[in-house]
């Protein structure tokens, strides 16, 4: 069964304090790994898709990386507006095109 585990569940940082969020996964053949941002009361907002080990993608203060077992979302010099829940999901090569999500990491950036 495809599975995604995110850690930590919650993370508090000071503005400017860089850190990383972890997403460990098991999947029967990876089609893609997805990162989403979710603000309270809203639907997930797409950030990145990674397809193969070694791939990296960047957007502003965020960089996502991928290995065969996990993905990291690195946040550099975060600002309070980066506070949100970050969701990781995988899509398998075979079967339904559904996404299997982790439970998310709730990130709070204090000014």
């Amino acid at each position, binding site marked *: 069964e495809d599975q995604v585990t995110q850690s930590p569940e919650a993370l508090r940082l000071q503005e400017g304090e860089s850190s990383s969020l972890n997403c460990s996964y098991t999947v029967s053949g990876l089609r893609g790994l997805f990162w989403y941002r979710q603000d309270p009361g*809203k639907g997930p907002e797409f950030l990145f*898709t990674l397809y193969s080990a070694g791939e990296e993608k960047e957007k502003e203060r965020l960089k996502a990386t991928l290995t065969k077992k996990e993905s990291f979302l690195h946040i550099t010099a975060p600002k309070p507006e980066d506070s949100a829940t970050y969701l990781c999901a995988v899509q398998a090569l075979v079967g*339904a095109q559904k996404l299997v999500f982790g439970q998310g990491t709730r990130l709070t950036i204090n000014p």
Partner: protein
Amino acid sequence: GAGVSQSPSNKVTEKGKDVELRCDPISGHTALYWYRQRLGQGLEFLIYFQGNSAPDKSGLPSDRFSAERTGESVSTLTIQRTQQEDSAVYLCASTPQLSSETQYFGPGTRLLVL
């Protein structure tokens, strides 16, 4: 253009009543998904529609849940005889084309069953 829209944004119902939730995908998107998100949890897949193909219903938790989609337009998720454990946010997503994997989500419907 407009994103995925869902209605109602909030729904409060009594245990045992039926509810209908609506999703309007982005125009031209061929695939549509429903997910459920319980408080503090990740999203759980419910059902997937792709064009005129038979839907993938493998995520529906019980036969009280059903969904319909007309062509490549609106979808309705129906929950019959609601239970308190059905309380959750129900999210809809769509993708622009068959080969695209990026799912774009609507704002969700927050369902509370009393």
